[in-house]
């Protein structure tokens, strides 16, 4: 009896002016090649996140590391996350901290 697990991207959505990327993946479990369970997993990619240190008031931008994404998602990122989008989003977040 062989139990296997595979992940399949089922939806990629681009949301709003900041081109936030929503990814839906199905985690599929099979027993001897027959699907026994499927779990939907969601994640969201922003161009960056911004955090503030409350002791020093230093504001830090953490750019999203996309190096481990599959090529399909990398291609969308390259297309949508222009320098202008990234800069505008960083400014938007910095204005909130």
């Amino acid at each position, binding site marked *: 009896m062989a139990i296997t697990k595979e992940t399949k991207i*089922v*939806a990629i*959505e681009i*949301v*709003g002016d*900041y081109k*936030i990327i*929503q990814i*839906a993946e199905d985690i599929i479990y099979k027993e001897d090649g027959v699907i026994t369970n499927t*779990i*939907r*997993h*969601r*994640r*969201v990619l*922003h161009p960056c*996140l911004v*955090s*503030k*240190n*409350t*002791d*020093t008031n230093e504001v*830090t931008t*953490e750019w999203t590391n996309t190096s481990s994404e599959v090529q399909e998602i990398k291609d969308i990122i390259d297309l949508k996350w222009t320098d202008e989008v990234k800069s505008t989003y960083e400014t*938007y*977040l910095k204005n*909130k*901290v």
Partner: protein
Amino acid sequence: MSKTTIPTGGIGILTQLAFNATQSASTNANTLDDYEEGTWTPTFSGYSGTDQNATGYYTKVGNLVTAGCRIGTDGTSDASVATIAGLPFTVRASTEDGAIGGGLVTYTTGLAAQRWYAINNTATVKCADGTGNDVNYNDFGANKTVMLIITYFV
């Protein structure tokens, strides 16, 4: 897209009703256009330590997401504002953070007076104390856990 007309008298008992993975958004206020349930992975944003026991579940009905999670800090000292990232959907754009989403703490071993509010145009909720001041990871506590039910609009 073709549509099936439902009799005015309603429909009988359904065993299942399926929606696409990608929402087909309706502009009609009385139309149910999405349902989905699944998992997500909460992470502490800007945290230099390692997240502990991070798990999350969600259900989305129409434009409303309810997401539950558990996450904890380790022993790392960090004065960054405590923020949970990784929500399954982007929080709707709005004029004011927290007005369209926030968290209910169901259990915590950390700071007693913690409030979590959704940040518009992100997939994050930020922590504040009982008077609305930022809470950092040191305030929250080392080796502490929080469990939340987060509800927000998309």
